[in-house]
């Protein structure tokens, strides 16, 4: 059991990293990766929302929707739950980290439409995880996202001083860097 949980965690965080393997959550990955402190903040915000949303959607889907035969409402309820979780985070950050709130700008409410979070909720249903596995998987996936965006922010701070050719500046070189990162992380491929 413990070994399985560790495996789920490492798979979600590193081997099948949401950004590098599934290319999910690219908008905040490109939008908020300009500075390391912001990237860490966004990483933890996404981790929190992902954990809350993953657990709540598991409860709602497995304990409510399947009981009353309304599985087709899956997407709409998932989005609702994610939006609610994002509201919580937004109120918390606005109250306690006003400067971080300012610098996130539109990207904080945009977590609602972050495909990585909906993706995590749907993966949980697809893999038919139990409650504990769901918890571990969503934390792992969130921390994997935080890792990816922090690495990218470190690189982009370095690239501020680089003489990147004009057509590649901004999103261009960021996507190219992400491509190299995806190739590097493909080294963790595991056959099951």
């Amino acid at each position, binding site marked *: 059991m413990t070994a399985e949980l560790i495996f789920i965690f490492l798979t979600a965080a590193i081997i099948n990293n949401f950004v590098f393997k599934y290319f999910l959550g690219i908008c905040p990955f490109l939008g908020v990766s300009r500075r390391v402190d912001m990237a860490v903040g966004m990483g933890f915000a996404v981790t929190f929302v992902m954990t809350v949303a993953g657990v709540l959607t598991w409860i709602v889907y497995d304990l409510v929707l399947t009981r009353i035969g309304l599985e087709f409402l899956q997407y709409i309820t998932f989005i609702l739950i994610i939006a609610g979780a994002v509201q919580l985070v937004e109120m918390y950050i606005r109250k306690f980290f006003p400067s971080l709130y300012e610098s996130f700008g539109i990207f904080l409410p945009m977590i609602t439409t972050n495909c990585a979070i909906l993706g995590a909720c749907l993966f949980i249903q697809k893999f038919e995880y139990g409650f504990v596995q769901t918890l571990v998987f969503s934390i792992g996936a969130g921390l994997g996202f935080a890792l990816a965006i*922090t*690495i990218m922010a*470190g*690189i982009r701070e370095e690239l501020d*001083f680089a003489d990147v*050719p004009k057509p590649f500046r901004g999103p261009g070189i960021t996507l190219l*860097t992400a491509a*190299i990162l995806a*190739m*590097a992380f493909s080294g963790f491929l595991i056959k099951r």
Partner: protein
Amino acid sequence: MSVDTAKEPQGDVVSSGPGGLEVQPAPHLTDPITTRRLMLDVIIALIPAFLASLVFFQWNSLRVLALCLIGCLATEYLFNRVRNKPNSLSDLSAVVTAIILAFSLPPTLPWFAVLMGAIVAIALGKMFFGGLGQNIFNPAMVGRAFLMVTFASLMTTWVAPAAEPGPPVPTDRVEAVTAATPLAQIKPGDPERPLPETWRLFVGRTAGSLGETSVIALLIGAAYLLIRRTIDWTIPFGMLGAALAFAAIAYLAAPGKFANPMFHLGAGSLVFGAFLIATDLVTSPLSKSGRVVFGAGCGVLTMVIRQFGTYPEGVMFSILMMNALAPLIGRWMRPTPLGGKARG
């Protein structure tokens, strides 16, 4: 990155005082070490490994190296022409990239794949980031990673080295004999074959990439670089130390399942990576402690991939991953300035 400060003094004489006294702008203290000199040292250090690869893989070794040189130098030249930048071929960094890429490729790789790898290495790995000193990733490893995901089966087809003892091969009917690399042999699912003896791993008479097989030839080059102080001990020490410690723990925990540390030292490109790839000045952290951590990360990730991943070898992946982490390591492991606290 810091190696370029040592150009000739800019030479703008600001004013001539009485008696021909010259006033020059800073820097006044310069060092005779130039980028070109550092790269030349690396090239010299790679010569023994090249000679070894000539012995083991014969004309294939020359062919791959020539193609890599053509691809890398042409790409760098074209980029500078298009961007109206001064030609940077003479700093020899593209030559070093070409040699390291060639040494990390299988001897039988077809010409188009070699050429593509060389072009991607310089274009994607270096010129897109603005050229030497600004690249985040080791260009040669970017090229190799690209080939690995593009031509996976070509990149894992190996030939036995020449002068292989065993039943005579009818050379008039076959071009080459395929063989598994020592690291591929320890992967589960591979039919049981006797592993090569450790001495053969160190001499280098095994299947593998061009320049990685002969540990002894690589160590001769590494000793030259260490004596010239082109590289310092931090990264190789961190990488080899961490990898050997990891291998030793795994071996002691389950000797039947994992190969012994000496095997891991001799097989694959661990030594090549530790002394000649990971030590790249541009893509590693600046502080001493940062470089030890960088090396240790490379070593641990290499062993994780070798022992738990699907790929037999992890040196390239681990170096690329630690290249990506190098800016963060540099940020979080700043050396303490003399007489002050680190962060301010």
